[in-house]
């Protein structure tokens, strides 16, 4: 292993436990409570924070967050690239800390997508707000159908099957059933027949947008969380083991010139992150990969180099991604993922939180002695314009 820069570490985490706040809490409430608990987890307090990172509370987001939290930050970053914003925030926080501009960075997320009845996946007009919308919104492309087009093309080019994609849902549900918060989430969101699933369960579930079935699609929950990232001299005195940020990569991709939708922006962000960390995909104990849909994970596993492009379907067969098969590795989304635990619209922060739990030895689907994890976020829409953020994390 090459010499790694250990400039910044995750020292505090909190995942807001409720997935249905029944209209009684706002996103800001969820952020503030999560922030206070993550700071307590680290053994720090509000006055230690000098950098804030948040993907949105309207027009003057940074100002709103600073005032609501009662902070006087010297670094403010409100980058919003969709669900991978928190990977971008972790990358930026590490750089700000390494440059001496901040010592304690606070990343926050809160959403009431469930209780405000946001039809994220099936609203019928994609996400909106892009320059190309005026040429696309007439077609009724749902967000799920956007990802489904990636799956169809992957099947067409590489012979990938629905049964292979279902492996991702099955492994993730297996992990969710070990996580009491995930089980409660599925109960609160009125999932039917909450149990471990089989390949047959997934491919026999209702088709939402061909070829994606219901059990290949993430839930829409309320929720949020917070992550505290600190400089080494702070991290050494925190309550928890530091989880070092070893490398980061950021990228975007969009359909100009007919892009290949069987690969994602992870092709660009992955090598930057792994290269900076001086490690490779096959060394990862844990893969926290944004599972908006089964195809998102399959595509990104290939793009990050876990297997060659097009071989992901065969590679995931046989339960390889389960937490109890560490010799085959990596363990995928050990908290239960967006598919079966928590997806309030922008899941990226939970990838950092569960990767940190694993490297601290605190997961409900713990991989014994886990040392290295990749947390990879995908934002926007995989089949058209999207962002990718890769964060490589390591334990001492």
């Amino acid at each position: 292993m090459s010499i790694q820069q250990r400039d910044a570490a995750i020292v505090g985490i909190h995942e807001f436990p409720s997935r249905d706040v029944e209209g009684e809490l706002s996103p800001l409430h969820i952020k503030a409570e999560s922030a206070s608990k993550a700071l307590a987890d680290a053994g720090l307090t509000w006055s230690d924070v000098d950098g804030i990172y948040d993907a949105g509370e309207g027009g003057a987001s940074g100002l709103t967050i600073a005032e609501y939290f009662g902070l006087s930050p010297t670094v403010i970053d409100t980058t919003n690239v969709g669900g991978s914003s928190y990977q971008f925030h972790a990358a930026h926080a590490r750089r700000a800390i390494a440059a001496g501009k901040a010592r304690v960075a606070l990343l926050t997320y809160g959403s009431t997508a469930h209780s405000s009845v946001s039809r994220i996946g099936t609203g019928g007009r994609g996400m909106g707000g892009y320059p190309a919308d005026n040429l696309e919104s007439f077609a009724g492309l749902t967000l799920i159908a956007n990802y489904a087009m990636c799956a169809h093309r992957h099947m067409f080019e590489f012979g990938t099957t629905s049964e292979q994609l279902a492996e991702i849902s099955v492994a993730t549900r297996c992990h969710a059933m070990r996580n009491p918060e995930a089980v409660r989430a599925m109960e609160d969101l009125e999932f039917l027949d909450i149990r471990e699933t089989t390949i047959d369960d997934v491919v026999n579930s209702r088709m939402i947008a061909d070829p994606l079935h219901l059990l290949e699609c993430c839930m829409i929950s309320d929720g949020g969380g917070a992550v505290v990232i600190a400089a080494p001299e702070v991290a050494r005195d925190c309550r928890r083991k530091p989880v070092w940020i070893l490398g980061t990569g950021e990228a975007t991709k969009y359909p100009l010139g007919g892009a290949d939708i069987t690969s994602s922006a992870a092709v660009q962000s992955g090598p930057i992150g792994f290269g900076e960390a001086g490690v490779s995909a096959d060394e990862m104990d844990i893969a926290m990969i944004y599972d908006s849909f089964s195809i998102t994970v399959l595509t990104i596993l290939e793009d990050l180099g876990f297997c060659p492009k097009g071989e992901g379907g065969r590679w995931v067969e046989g339960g390889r991604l389960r937490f109890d098969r560490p010799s085959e590795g990596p363990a995928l989304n050990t908290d239960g993922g967006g598919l079966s635990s928590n997806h309030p619209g922008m899941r990226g922060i939970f990838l950092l939180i569960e990767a940190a739990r694993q490297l601290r030895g605190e997961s409900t689907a713990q991989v014994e002695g886990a040392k290295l994890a990749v947390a990879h976020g995908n934002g926007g829409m995989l089949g058209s314009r999207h962002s990718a953020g890769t964060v490589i994390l390591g334990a001492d």
Partner: protein
Amino acid sequence: MAESTRPLPNFEESDTAPFWEGTTDRRLRFQRCSDCDTVIFHPRRHCVGCLGCDLTWHDASGRGTVYSYSIVRQSYHPFFRQHVPYVVAWVDLDEGPRLLSNVVGIEDPSSQVHCGMPVRVEWEPHGDHAIPLFRPL
């Protein structure tokens, strides 16, 4: 219940107005850079292949192939929910641009649409303008 309609574009929007103007006489238009020949789609003011801003409009033949597609079976949109299942597709025009559209004129989308399928444009009139949809060749 009032009949809801397909969501229509803003035909006056500055980047795409020439594209929509072309649909009034059923021309499917795209931009190419006069300096470096890069095809630009969606339309804009500048070339992304070079530093030029001299883009010219060209008519596409209306023929292309389905790059990928999905069959939407669940939508909460007031118009589209009445039309499930329907096919959305990325269509690669022979001249290079990739358009998002619907494949229409098929009885059974599950068996009759596939990646690589040749299609041609079919216009759905809306006043003077028209929406470009595609039908199997």
